[in-house]
């Protein structure tokens, strides 16, 4: 409980600093949002009026405080470009990105757990070397390249799955799933390869630990000892990696969204940058950063929960 409070406090500090950094960073963006909104057909008066309407003529500190205060209430402000509330747009997109990241995570875990454990258990055999080699190859392939290859195989050649696009879950669950398969695979295969290496190394470390020998000395068979005593211990370092990976996936989704034309946060972010939609970019970045921070804290807490050595401290 104390730990939870402490972690939350540190999360809050980080988030505040992050919001400040993001704001400061984007405040120096060239390009006046009011000018952009009105396009080439704007009069200077109109620009000034709009600038006032947006509040971009106020001092930066006021703007920051205003924005940060809004954030606390979940209010991300109104877009300079599209004139609608940013909050709901981010929420919409965040859901999509979350599905992608979670789907990718699922693929990665389903792939890496068996592959990593087997690669470790067979580390002196050819099959183990093969698994390691495959995971090495997997790590070397960027997610977007995996995406392109998957599109080629499953969409272009086989025509079995859509090459891109997205259908909301509420609209058609079947189509939703069909559209998510390839993006999640391309995220998951690569992260799975990375994870496989960590699982393998965690299991290998455990394999060489005394308590596993103790377990076998008490009559556990090799595999049962690994399963009952080895894996719970190997899970501890793997969990940390999982947390880091979920963060990686959240951000990695940006690229994969581009490959598969999925309307997620990354897509929104790139659009915001192109439109010079300052508030939108700020909003998306802060959401991503806070998401990463939250994932880190949750991982940390789980880590403490899983490892009694840390728990009692």
């Amino acid at each position, binding site marked *: 409980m104390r730990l939870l409070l402490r972690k939350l406090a540190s999360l809050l500090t980080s988030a505040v600093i992050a919001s400040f950094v993001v704001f400061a960073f984007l405040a120096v963006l*060239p*390009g*006046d949002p009011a*000018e*952009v909104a*009105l*396009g*080439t*057909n*704007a*009069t200077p008066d*109109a620009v000034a009026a709009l600038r006032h309407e947006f509040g971009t003529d106020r001092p930066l500190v006021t703007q920051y405080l205003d924005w940060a205060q809004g954030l606390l209430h979940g209010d991300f402000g109104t877009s300079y*470009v*599209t*004139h*609608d509330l940013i909050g709901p*747009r981010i929420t*919409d997109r965040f859901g999509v990105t979350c599905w992608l990241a979670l789907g990718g995570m699922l693929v990665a875990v389903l792939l890496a757990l068996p592959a990593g454990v087997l690669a470790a258990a067979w580390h002196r055999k050819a099959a183990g070397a093969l698994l390691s080699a495959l995971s090495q190859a997997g790590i070397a392939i960027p997610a977007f390249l995996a995406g392109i290859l998957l599109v080629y195989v499953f969409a272009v050649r086989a025509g079995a799955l*859509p*090459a*891109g*696009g*997205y259908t909301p879950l509420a609209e058609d669950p079947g189509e939703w799933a069909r559209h998510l398969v390839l993006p999640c695979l391309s995220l998951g295969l690569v992260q799975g390869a990375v994870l496989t290496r960590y699982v393998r190394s965690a299991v290998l470390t455990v394999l060489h630990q005394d308590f596993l020998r103790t377990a076998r000395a008490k009559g556990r068979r090799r595999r049962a000892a690994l399963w009952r005593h080895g894996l719970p211990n190997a899970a501890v370092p793997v969990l940390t990696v999982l947390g880091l990976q979920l963060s990686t996936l959240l951000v990695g989704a940006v690229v994969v969204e581009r490959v*598969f*034309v999925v*309307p997620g946060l990354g*897509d929104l972010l790139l*659009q915001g*940058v*192109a*439109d*010079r939609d300052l508030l939108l970019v700020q909003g998306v970045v802060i959401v991503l950063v806070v998401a990463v921070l939250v994932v880190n804290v949750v991982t940390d807490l789980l880590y403490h929960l899983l490892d009694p050595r840390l728990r009692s401290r």
Partner: protein
Amino acid sequence: MTRSKRLPVLVAGCALLGGVLAGCGSGGGSSASGTTDTLSVGLIAEPASLDFTTTDGAAIPQAMLGSVYEGLVRLDQQGRIQPHLAERYERSDDGRTYTFHLRRGVRFTNGADFTADDAVFSIDRVKKDWKLKIARQMDVVEKAEKTDDHTVKVTLSRPSNGWLFSMTERIGAMFSRTGVADLANHPVGTGPFELAERRRGERIVLDRNASYWGTKPELSKVTLKYFKDAGAMNNAMLTNSIDVLGTVQAPESLSRFADTNRFRTIEGTSTGEVVLSMNNAREPFKDKRVRQAVRHAIDHKALVDTARSGHGKLIGTMATPTDPWYEDLTGRYPYDPAKAKELLKDAGAEGKSLRLRVPNMPYAVSAAQVVKSQLDQVGLKVEIEPLEFPARWLSEVFTKGDYDMSIIDHAEPRDLWTFADSSYYFHYDNPEYGKLLKEGDAGKPQDETARYREAARLLSDDAAADWLYLMPNLMVADKNLTGLPVNQVGEGFELTGVRWAKK
């Protein structure tokens, strides 16, 4: 205010101005929804609002003009001005007075009759309430008066052919005196369609206007589906969830629609000239010889073949085939690297470093790479710098004029005047050219054609810029659809004539 003071609608390629449909027809077939009287059109770039009187951008008139709103006059597929809500109109000999005889029995979708009062109201409103610079086109109007319920007399402060043309565009749209309360969400017009539903981020649905004055559309419902990206739209077309792919972003993707049993590719002209602009105010382009050298150095055919997979008509000046003054000037500067080198040598501009600052749109970046390669061949050193569009490109290139060369699609129709304003980012400064445009604008319609043709030639000869190609109006449609327009001539998206072929 001369016509030349107008600012253009700059469109970064077909991305923003989708295919514009016009034409006639009626029939059967089956739509994305399986019925024969509905249509689904895929477009890129959703309008942020439905009110083009306060919000700029090509997407709103694309969706609204011609379908929901109509003007007194309209453009036909050949780019000629035809009477529309006005049955006919007369131009006085001095060219300062236009008398419009309004069609009777025309009703707004809010039930009100369309009368001379509405026409005057609409014209005055542009002058009074519109916030956009485009409204300046109405500055030339001295007064608009109602002669009787169905006649309107418009008096101009000086003769202007351009004004009549602009009445076919946004500013000519007729509004109801009682229907302008919430234009952003509840547009009220006289057009063949009315707004049924608008879902932000997804679609605009238009229903047939049951009380339309003219030939009623075959289609009872049209859905404009907006996509974030060409890929998604292509997929939608492939999976039959749209019937028309309103704009083909990358010509390379046409290969996916090669199945002639399902698809038809429509390629026509648009009003978008893809211009390789050269900053006339800066060295080395102050020197006409350097500009000429650039025009000689570029193999336009090769450029279209490589950067556009061959899709795109070659043009030689700021005019399109649907402009009355159009003539083929592509032979003025044939591809001739030797000549280019010679000109550069004469001008002492060999080995100059040039910044080619282009919007980061695929068509512009593609073309830029070819331009760079070809200019490098004649000894120039070109550095490509893609800038985010619209924000950075607008502020750095368009507003500040901080560039040597750029590439952008000038999508606005009849935009010769952009070269007449020396403060415009081309910074082309030739009084002779301005004079020609002024005379053309003020003269009789036939003078307009002659003068403008002359101006276009002058522009080309002066190498005020280089015209890489004409952006094609490239669409893919279900093969059973007929009545789709081939050419994109104006701002609006006319759906009236589209129909499914009979079985």
